[in-house]
């Protein structure tokens, strides 16, 4: 897996993940993702549009970071998962605890409400 980070717009950190988020892939990005998402308060948009597959280990990484960010007073949104990835996320009820957005306005709305 690969991970890239950029300031999407003032106040919103964009983290782009790409590849297969299984055991092997998640191990490749887990430490950097954790540092980026957990060490300071932020509004974080995790772009999943280039994630081709997600397994439970990948969901675990997302939840651990979202929890840490919430403790800091920030928030996280999952952005544009493909149909298969979103099907897996919804099968585990993740959309109820980490919002999923498919456009930037919806993501901004989540951050504004957080």
């Amino acid at each position, binding site marked *: 897996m690969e991970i890239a980070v950029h300031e999407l717009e003032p106040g919103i950190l964009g983290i782009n993940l790409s590849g*297969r988020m299984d*055991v092997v892939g998640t191990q490749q990005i887990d430490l950097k993702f954790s540092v980026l998402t957990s060490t300071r308060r932020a509004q974080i948009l995790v772009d999943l549009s280039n994630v081709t597959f997600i*397994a439970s280990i990948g969901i675990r990484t997302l939840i651990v970071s979202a929890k840490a960010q919430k403790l800091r007073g920030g928030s996280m949104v999952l952005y544009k998962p493909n149909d298969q990835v979103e099907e897996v996320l919804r*099968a585990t009820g993740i959309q109820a605890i980490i919002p999923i957005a498919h456009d930037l306005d919806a993501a901004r709305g989540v951050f504004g409400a957080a």
Partner: protein
Amino acid sequence: MEQLRDLEHWVAQLGAEQLLSPVLVHHIDLCLTELVSNVIHYGYPDGKPGTVRIRFRREPERIVICIEDDGTPFDPTAYVPAGLPTSLTDADTGGRGIRLVRHFADEVHHLASAAGNQLTLVFRSPRPARAADRGA
């Protein structure tokens, strides 16, 4: 865990050869990834070597996949997953793999064997249309 890459490629090849739909290939891929990861992680404590065998069978209207291992006995059909999370604060960080397998496989059967475990997954799948049928 690098063997999981071989598994991923095997499933993709299987899907291409058997003309399985991308959605079905994804469901098989996910279930096998979860179950084989579990076996590798928990089935062989203390670095004990082991073997996991996966067999595929196509029947009318369904795909049957058997996973046999010689690791620690574990029956995923007896495991009771936690309920769906209602708040981020209270959500468990792990324990979702078996839930996913039960969600995406149409049937899951476990048989404890002398060697270890035999798990059977069933996925309902209509046969792909033959060329003659498509042209009718």
